[in-house]
């Protein structure tokens, strides 16, 4: 499954959330992560995020069950990642 996760959290927790998400997904923009992930892994990730979050924070998760249904257009600078070769 392909997910896009965006977050809006208090300044103190931005770094923590970002670091946590970096373990699971690819960073695309400020406060936006995306990537392929298994259901179980996503649940694990969200549980861990829950521990960081405070009441006024929010995280949005957009799921695309079939990655073939995803069309992604980019305007301006595209930070495309090579996931396999470094």
């Amino acid at each position, binding site marked *: 499954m392909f997910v896009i996760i965006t977050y809006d959290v208090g300044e103190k927790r931005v770094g923590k959330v970002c670091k946590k998400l970096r*373990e699971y997904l*690819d*960073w695309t923009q400020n406060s936006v992560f995306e990537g*392929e*992930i298994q259901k179980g*892994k996503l649940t694990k990730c969200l549980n861990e995020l829950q521990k960081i979050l405070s009441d006024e924070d929010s995280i949005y998760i957009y799921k695309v069950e079939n990655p073939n249904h995803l069309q992604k257009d980019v305007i301006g600078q595209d930070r495309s990642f090579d*996931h*396999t*070769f*470094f």
Partner: protein
Amino acid sequence: MNRDIFILSNGRMKRKDNTLYFEDEKGEKRPIPVEQTNSIHFLGQVDFNTSLLHLLSQHQICFHVYNYYGYYDGTFCPRNPKVSGFTVVQQSAHVLDPEKRMYLAKSFVLAGIHHMLRNIRRNGSNDTAYSDTILSMLDRVESARTIPELMGAEGHCRQVYYDAFGQLLKNGMEWHSRSKQPPKDPVNALISFGNSLMYTTIISEIYKTVLDPTVSFLHEPSSRRFSLSLDIAEIFKPLIIDSLVFTLLNNRRIQEKHFESKDGAVLLNSEGRKRFLAAFDEKMKTTIKHRKLNRQVSYRYLIRLEAYKLIKHFIGDEVYKPFKAWW
């Protein structure tokens, strides 16, 4: 879904913020999501420290090291939590009993030959001479009573198979015979590099099961090497690596310019390696519908299933039938 990471450039691999970062020679850092990583292949010169190893062991990530020429050097596998003395004892019992050992050794060989024939059939012309010759030699494999006898029969089949390469390769790639250490021409270089990758992939998969990678059947279980992965590679080398070599060469995705010659050895250059690795990675991720499991499984997972079947065989659950591609 987890991916393999190939590090081709020189630099430093490190742990930061509980995830992986690769820092190249220019100091540019790139994060790698640790949860999405299956194993890491180091083909360049890479520095790391023990804190990286701690992270890798927490996530059960193996890393494989290759030398300057792309030959397999070794593997770091985290402490394996999957051990089962019972299975290992049963596995060893199958080596000690000549009859049981022959059954498994033959299974590996026959599955390998099945895939060789498949390659000839799929890539060859209408000429059936080669496959007929191999088919006529199958009796010798079936009736072999000792391991050396079996190895000999298998060697003869393989010889004919390699003779057929001349016909299977289009675009005038040079081919005489199989040569290794060092490979003498581009095709051999591809096969050698591919086989190294195959061994490491199988080691990674065996490590996820309770099998002991050093106790093997076709190859003599000696010390100092993971010979079980050589056994299983018999099945998958022709299926995965050889067919990949044909595809890449016949479609001109890899050409003469992707090789370099050094002291009589022909090796892939960095662009060639990258192309081969990309194709290999792609291949391992392709899925087929498994007839028994009734779901899509990737080539990589097929290897693990092979290990699971062996375990079942050892503990007397189900007789081992080697994997033979049916499509």
